[in-house]
């Protein structure tokens, strides 16, 4: 199936998956269009409307026919696909190269996170109850420069979303600073924060629950415009909402729709339009594609990249999918149990990971190509993720690290420079 797919839909799905093992050279291939309406399924081949290899015959329903031993395909042109190249049928066209704006690194970071700590106190207060502290984010520092995309990856529970929430001030940091354009947000008052809110926007993970079901799409997008009086009249903000819908690939008439009337990908586009409405400088993307189908995921990633090119946006891209992060990011931060393990520019990190945790993560991620997969040595991390209530001493990763020794239990490793634009928090890794 993976090595030699014999249906255009399968080919499309495989091509729209970002690849961990390949640097970003182009836009993601996507399957154009939307899944068909099940109330009124197309006659003939179900996939024909979205298929690049469509011919007249596709108006009749293809049966599921055995093409090769053990491999059946419901495509009239499966035999041709089996012959060899899908490209001849129009399925292999390389999408246009992404217009990556030359991102000269600006001197001054737009966003600086300095020794950020966020602890949550859990458990009941009072005698007889132990006060428990979850160290969700423990002494994290990094910078984001204007116009770049910084990927923030790690397993669930590593604190990456908490960092996003702190930057947005949905949570107040326990300690440390968050500097945006030189101003500290961590200690900003509500009034001061209001002035900054417009410039830092967010796209949330779950496009189903993050839109108010009682408001139309137009109201959702226009609401902050009205709250901040960014447009002179309601009419103007409604027009702007319609315009934004067009920019994210939806139709202006959808402003009248309610979120539940849209598909997941369309809702995520609404979320993006809402974030764009404020003309922000930074968008925190908190797992924006992890709830979406792969074909839709590719469309959204492409949209985010296009918008970045058009408006010079800066992204903090939080995700757990290493392949997606490799595709979209300029620099990548790897986190584990509330601490940064490694920071590097994208290709450096993926081609030459230094920290044993980064190596393990990359090894554990599957690659949708059986031939590549066969040649890989898979090292699986032993053990469970330790409880953040009681993190290991020294290096938090030492309990699962293949190269840890006694020293790792004692010393909390600093982030050290291990190459150009490459830092790792491991005492075992040197230049």
């Amino acid at each position, binding site marked *: 199936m993976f090595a030699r797919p014999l249906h255009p839909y399968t080919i499309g799905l495989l091509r729209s998956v970002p690849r961990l093992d390949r640097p970003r050279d182009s836009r993601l291939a996507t399957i154009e269009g939307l899944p068909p309406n099940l109330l009124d399924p197309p006659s003939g081949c179900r996939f024909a409307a979205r298929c690049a290899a469509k011919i007249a015959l596709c108006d009749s329903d293809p049966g599921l026919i055995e093409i090769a031993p053990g491999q059946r395909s419901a495509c009239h042109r499966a035999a041709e696909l089996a012959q060899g190249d899908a490209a001849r049928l129009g399925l292999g066209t390389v999408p246009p190269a992404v217009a990556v704006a030359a991102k000269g690194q600006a001197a001054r970071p737009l966003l600086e996170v300095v020794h950020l700590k966020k602890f949550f106190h859990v458990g009941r207060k009072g005698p007889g109850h132990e006060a428990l502290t979850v160290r969700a984010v423990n002494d994290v520092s990094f910078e984001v420069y204007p116009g770049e995309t910084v990927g923030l990856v790690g397993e669930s529970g590593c604190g990456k979303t908490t960092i996003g929430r702190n930057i947005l001030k949905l949570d107040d940091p326990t300690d440390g600073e968050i500097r945006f354009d030189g101003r500290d947000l961590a200690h900003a008052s509500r009034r001061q924060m*209001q002035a900054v809110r417009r410039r830092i926007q967010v796209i*949330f993970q*779950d496009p189903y629950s993050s839109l108010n079901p009682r408001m139309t799409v137009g109201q959702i997008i226009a609401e902050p415009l009205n*709250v901040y009086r960014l447009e002179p009249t309601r009419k103007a903000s409604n027009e702007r909402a319609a315009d934004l819908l067009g920019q994210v690939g939806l139709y202006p008439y959808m402003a009248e729709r309610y979120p539940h009337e849209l598909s997941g990908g369309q809702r995520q586009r609404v979320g993006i339009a809402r974030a764009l409405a404020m003309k922000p400088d930074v968008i925190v993307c908190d797992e924006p594609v992890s709830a979406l189908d792969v074909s839709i995921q590719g469309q959204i990633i492409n949209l985010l990249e296009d918008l970045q090119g058009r408006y010079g946006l800066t992204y903090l891209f939080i995700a757990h999918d290493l392949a997606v992060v490799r595709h979209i990011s300029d620099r990548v931060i790897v986190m584990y149990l509330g601490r940064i393990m490694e920071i590097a520019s994208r290709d450096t990190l993926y081609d030459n990971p230094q920290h044993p945790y980064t190596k393990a993560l990359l090894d554990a991620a599957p690659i949708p190509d059986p031939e590549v997969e066969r040649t890989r040595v898979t090292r699986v991390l032993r053990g469970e993720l330790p409880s953040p209530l009681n993190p290991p001493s020294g290096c938090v990763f030492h309990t699962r690290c293949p190269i840890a020794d006694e020293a790792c239990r004692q010393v909390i490793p600093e982030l050290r420079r291990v190459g150009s634009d490459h830092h790792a928090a491991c005492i075992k890794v040197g230049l």
Partner: protein
Amino acid sequence: MLQYTVRRILLAIPTLLGVAVLIFFMLRVVPGDIVELKLRGDGAAVSAETLQVERVRLGLDKPLSSQFADWMIGLVTLDFGKSMWTGNPVAHEIAIRLELSFEVAILATVIAVLLALPLGTIAALYKDTWIDYVVRVLAIAGLAVPSFWLGMLFILALLVYFAWLPPITFTPIYQDPWANLAQMILPALSVGYRYSAVATRMTRSSVLEVLKEDYIRTARAKGVFERLVVARHAIRNALLPVITVIGLEFAFLIGGLVVTEQVFNLNGIGKLFVQSVTRSDYTMIQALVMLVAFIFVVVNVAIDLLYARLDPRIRYQ
């Protein structure tokens, strides 16, 4: 939507029919004979023939099936018959009390909503602070204190401190609003307090639930002021379960205020209900049960239609 409404109203018919069958036959099974109660109730020596004559007059000698058929025909033509005890038309007996019962129910609902929505919301916003605790204690007290007892306290307090008693005779609100309110406000308050306790607790938990929703976080993140987040995003979404509670409680109040009506000497539906049951006044009980069932059905349909208004996700086919 219109189609849905019509269908819901048509669906009410089998419900009401079921209620009718149940109440009719249950009444006949329950011991107690209106004729005996009425004629021999005071120990008078009345001959069996006289009893039989009265039975024939009331139609109680006919077989059950034909009694039921007569009643059903009456119901369909909106003729509820005459009270077996007083001989007055049932519709008239109910009508003169319904106004009062409705007024108490409406006043109590208004009081409950005015108390519950702000208190419940504030308690949710200030969860686990002293404000929340005060509201919760008030709500629990409202549930624990019987409303008739609270009513007695009201009356006693007014009597002791102001030497004032509410008027005893019912004055319709369109004749003399002040005299009317002077009589109705106390029962409405004592019932409304308990009612508001239920609604406050529902509002509080519902707002708390909604505040955890992702779209509230979205609203905050996009920079909407907290006041608007609460007013526009949270309360609107939290309202649905509160509406259900308020609606059902309202329907209950129409026939369920037996003791409170007693305490305030109100001649309402609840009092009529109890009287009729002790007298085994079949026609009256049947009509009252049908009335209460009808009100419940109407309130339920109204709640469902209101849901659709408030929540665009609910679109009835």
